[in-house]
């Protein structure tokens, strides 16, 4: 699979990941990898943030949209 965003710019770069939001294949230059907090607990127990997080990869376009 090739990077969709590179292809739009006329480049031919191999994709290294898939955006979890839009499903686009993306190269290292066009991905954002960030850690997502995990919470455990709900009524009748207080919710607590877990020490471990899970990584999430999105493309730069979806990342920008979610930041708004």
């Amino acid at each position: 699979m090739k990077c969709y965003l590179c292809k739009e710019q006329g480049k031919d770069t191999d994709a290294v990941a898939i955006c979890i939001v839009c499903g686009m294949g993306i190269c290292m230059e066009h991905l954002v990898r960030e850690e997502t907090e995990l919470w455990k607990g709900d009524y009748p127990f207080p919710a607590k943030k877990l020490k471990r997080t899970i990584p999430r990869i999105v493309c730069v376009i979806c990342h920008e949209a979610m930041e708004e």
Partner: protein
Amino acid sequence: MTDLVRRSLAELVGTFILVFFGPGAAAITLMIASGASKPNEFNIGIGALGGLGDWLAIGLAFAFAITASIYAVGKISGCHINPAVTIALWATKRFPTNEVLPYILAQLVGAALGSFAFAAAAGMDAVTIGGLGATAPFPGISYGQAMLAEIIGTFLLMFVIMGIAVDSRAPQQFAGLIIGLTVGGIIITIGNISGSSLNPARTFGPYLGDFLLGGINLWNFFPIYVIGPIVGAVLAAFLYDYLAKE
């Protein structure tokens, strides 16, 4: 602010909401029915104008207040807003021992503040006529009968909490609605027997308010609303654990 203080404060706010709106609705019903002719001795005013519909209205006020509190602070403190629930979760080793007292104190303070705030908002008739929605055995109901009603009522409440919220197999996100409606349903049936407290804090607030603001002194009935709910809740928690064991 430590985590426990923050969570205790959430319990205080949740219990304040419960006592302001729940017993507040009972007090308002008595104030509206004041002077109305009562069909029999069993009727103290709640039911004088709307029959069992009065209890439905009071039950729904409790249901809405509990549902709102659970969705508002459920993730912060667990929203027990009831010492009997806290003790039942502790007894079944689901709640830490060192947090039981802070939670119960917060619930009692929240309940007292809820009653005082209601008296401030509705005026002294809420104390002298409405009794701030305090619970007591109704005419013809003995001490033991009222306690039995509280045990059975709180048993059902805690049994539902175990099934809809504590059990990890329960459907998510429905707990607030179902538990609120369960309390409303219990109130409709046993409201005119024991007052349907199901919660020592819910009775403590109006009792303290009435006592300090010149209303009726009902403290001799307080053991009904401490022992009954705690026994009912603990029994339900242990029975559910036994029944749900894999």
